[in-house]
């Protein structure tokens, strides 16, 4: 078994909340990803067993959604929203600056695998642009100095 007992019991608890077990598939994928950072092939097989579906069905769900990953990820995820409202307020300029700061091209990760920098579609923060989502947390009304400080504060 790859999925830990704790995560497994959390999955079972979520399943109990749905009229059909399959309803808990997205929550289960979130839980597994919270634990491992991505959903590996082995995890997909186990999840398939839990939900009594085929691994390929887990994969088609996994690959449909942006927030799920099927391969190992960088330690920190930095996404700059580049949709229209944010772009109008300089989001792409900010992204370019962060690229040169980190010495990488988005989407891409630093050579040490520490930071992934990417762009993302609208995150519902249009009035507080530009913004970025760092490890799931929103940072809004950014300028480059503020954004750099946030990157600097990221742990190893």
């Amino acid at each position, binding site marked *: 078994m790859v999925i830990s007992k704790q995560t497994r019991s959390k999955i079972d608890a979520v399943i109990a909340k749905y009229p059909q077990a399959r309803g808990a598939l997205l929550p289960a994928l979130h839980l597994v990803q919270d634990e491992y950072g991505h959903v590996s092939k082995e995890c997909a097989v186990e999840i398939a067993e839990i939900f009594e579906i085929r691994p390929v069905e887990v994969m088609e769900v996994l690959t*449909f959604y942006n927030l799920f990953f099927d391969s190992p990820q960088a330690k920190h995820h930095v996404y700059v929203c580049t949709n229209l409202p944010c*772009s109008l307020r300089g989001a792409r300029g900010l992204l370019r600056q962060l690229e040169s700061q980190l010495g990488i091209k988005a989407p891409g990760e630093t050579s040490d695998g520490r930071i992934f920098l990417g762009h993302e*579609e609208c995150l*519902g923060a249009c009035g507080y642009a530009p913004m970025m989502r760092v490890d799931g947390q929103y940072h809004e009304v950014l300028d480059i100095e503020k954004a750099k400080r946030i990157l600097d504060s990221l742990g190893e």
Partner: protein
Amino acid sequence: MLETPYVTNYLTEHFGEEDYPTIEGYERVGGYRAARKALTEMSPDEVIELVKIAGLQGRGGAGFSTGMKWSFMPKDTDRPKYLVCNADESEPGSFKDRILLERGSHQMLEGILIAAWATGASTTFIYIRGEYAYPADQMERAIGEAYAKGYLGENVMGTGFRHDVRVTRGAGAYICGEETGLLESLEGKKGQPRKKPPFPAQYGAFGMPTTVNNVETFSHVPHIVEKGANWFRSFGTEKSPGTTVFGVSGHVVRPGLYELPLGTMLSEIVFEHAGGVPGGRKVKGVIPGGMSMSILPAGQLDVPMANEFLHERKTMLGTGGIIVMDETTCMVRVASVISYFFRDESCGQCTQCREGTGWINKIVDRIERGAGEEEDLEVLLDVAGKMEGQTICAFADAAAWPIQGLLRHFSDDFAEHVRQRKCPFAESFEL
């Protein structure tokens, strides 16, 4: 904490109060009185009738009558009935549901309770977009409080009515805001919209009769129940009553949220409330209702923000997300950003949508690079036309309309790119 709206009304009145998101804070200002009233003094039919008379329209984009929608739920059935709260807010330019979830959690829960009573639903699934981590946590907290107080669960407010609420987090797919795409996702599948019929009222979540309403739609309901249809109709227009929470973004002095009556002039929102364009620049165009709606050029901003007026200008209220663009803006770049988004978010089922979104994006990008030809503009319009009205859901329409709108009002921008073989807007936002 999110900034509270610049202009508030009944929905957002208390959003600045620190304890309002808690059940105590909510009840302190009269919260849950409406639900108690509905559950103890009104029959389900009376509630539906009231909401119909009030004329509440769905605030998720389509603007369908909420009371009508509720009345489609089968009455004599042994099957469990469900409500689904569409909190998958992903329409670019829209950020109102987020604050309604974070600050108005109990207001929305109260609306859900009343809707549940009216439709006989046993469970509500709140489907929150995966990126909204904090709003989801806050909703879980609020739901916990409501259970603890006996406002949810086996015996709601001692009436014997049973109702449960669950939160499901999405995982990053715009299409899950489409109600049947959402239902598929809720069932643990890819969020690919379903063919209709059957409609959700017959075959919805987990195959059961289901009504899907948007976050804001639910949030209006307690106010209607408490203060009546006439009171509700004192806001807004004859055909579009009530307020809505407009989100203003882009090139304005004060981007943010504004709760204003439907029918408020777009120009008033942009220039007075949001302070107009900074730096003395002029407006070039405004998208009035979230990115999938057609743009209006500067000369057409004297329009009341209600569907009956916006339809005349070939656009819609949508989610009330107003995106303002100043005179430096390159509309081909705008088209590029928009078409990239729709290409990225198409679920990929229907041919026109899967292929059309990609093709449009590629043509627009080529024009922006200076490699466009005159005939490309015709092809763009033609492809957009072929996507419209021919697919399982309205996503393809939503992808086509903004392109059609940009070409309708700003074809010169496109033509100039072709003529000069480069982007002529040196000061436009960076692409």
